[in-house]
């Protein structure tokens, strides 16, 4: 977690919920790397039989905006039968930090 000093303006959180299967991380990472989005952290767990992955990424150098990324990830999610979403990190920071 050595990334906390970097500017936070463009950090987003990708969340994946659904049945575990081969290639979930690869599929998400593929989309991110294609658009020059840097992955800062990944964690995953199984919660009540549900695969859960949280990925923190930096869109500073990205060639697409958040809305476009959201569409791409949601489409990929539908293909894989998963719920994939991306949200600005501020939502989480605002709720849990003063």
């Amino acid at each position, binding site marked *: *977690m050595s990334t*906390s000093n970097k500017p936070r303006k463009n950090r987003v*959180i990708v*969340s994946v*919920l659904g049945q575990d299967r081969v290639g979930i991380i690869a599929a998400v990472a593929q989309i991110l790397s294609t658009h020059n989005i840097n992955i800062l*952290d990944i*964690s995953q*767990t199984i*919660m009540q039989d549900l695969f*859960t992955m*949280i990925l*923190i990424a930096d869109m500073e150098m990205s060639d697409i905006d*958040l*809305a476009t990324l*959201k569409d791409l990830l949601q489409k990929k999610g539908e293909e894989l039968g998963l719920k994939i*979403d*991306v*949200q*600005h*990190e*501020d*939502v*989480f*920071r*605002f*709720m*849990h*930090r003063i």
Partner: protein
Amino acid sequence: MLTMQEILETIKMVQEEHLDIRTITMGISIRDCAHTNPQIATQKIYDKITRLAQRLVPVGEELEREFGIPIVNKRISVSPIALVAEASETDDYYLFAETLEKAAAEVGVNFIGGFSALVHKGLTKGDRNLIDSIPHALAATERVCASVNVATSKAGINMEAVYRMGEIIKETARLTAERDGLGCAKLVVFANVPEDNPFMAGAFHGVGEPDCVINTGVSGPGVVKKAVVKASDCDLGTLAEIIKKTAFKITRMGELIGREAAARLNVPFGIVDVSLAPTPAIGDSVAEILEAMGLERCGAHGSTAALALLNDAVKKGGLMASSYVGGLSGAFIPVSEDGGMIRAVEAGALSLEKLEAMTCVCSVGLDMIAVPGDTPAETIAAIIADEAAIGVINHKTTAVRIIPAPGKKVGDYVEFGGLLGHAPVMPTSTFSSAHFVRRGGRIPAPLHSLKN
């Protein structure tokens, strides 16, 4: 760094517990639009609203996508029309309501508030004209909301206005009879009305407000209920603490979205209204929170105490989360908009009298209540007077939004659809209040000391 638990908690709140921003409301002053010619005045109003609110809906949708939090409504409130229309040489203010409707449709908002008058001490010509125009205005428009403030703790209760509003509510119901009296769902009678409330139908842009402002209203009864359920058998002090923390998190979302919206629209950020606003959706109910606290049904003895705890904890948690808290701020207990309230009425657990008691300790008042169509105007006025008395004596906002559903009797249902929901028709007292109400005059302001 955020932990995975924190991130998942937020995601769950949105996906499973109906956390949302209930409304982003843009307040617009139209005091500079007054003109002796009503055609010119309404043109100026239309131009100002459509100019300032042009980007309100797109910006709201943009924020929704970026932050992944649903923003259910984007709305507009304007200065009380009575203040602006008074300068015009006309007695019929329907033209102003029509203008608001057109402007709201043009910018794509579902409600616009401010067809309003403040008459707690007396009525001017403009106030009378506005009040007289309410039934036609609400019957002939979809989006326009009306409100009238009839009492304050400083001025007392204007009983002439209270009686008149009883008649206006009856007339509004009559003109919208084919839709179960829907017009009345867009009409609120207030005591101690707040000037920065973002919630409909009672929103208007107060006289002390800037030219344009963004206010947000948060919601989240589902999130609070989940937290209460999870807390299981803890004592009530601990429970209050849990609700406070939850309210803090909910309010932070309102603060974030409000600040962002204001910055992107380049207008000042006003307030976050820290409210628990239920919807007819399953699991989005204030009544169910009270039931999760240990009451068999909302309305059982103990409901007032449970609601007092809830309301106070929500405010305390919310205050810390936002730089500016305002509006109504508290738990709403509308009947038709809350699935748990509807069930409680159906089960015979919740009566009008108990609801009245509950309004002493929570936000607003008797809200979205259907009563028989043949309820006399005087009885409705007396219900308003009772609520106003609670507000005036206790220095809080109270309100009445009541629907005397034409042709309906106790046990029938009214159906409004959407966020307005449906409601069983509730009985009122069959004893007359007519002589009391018809006396008119003003009930003097109460003592502000010697409080017991």
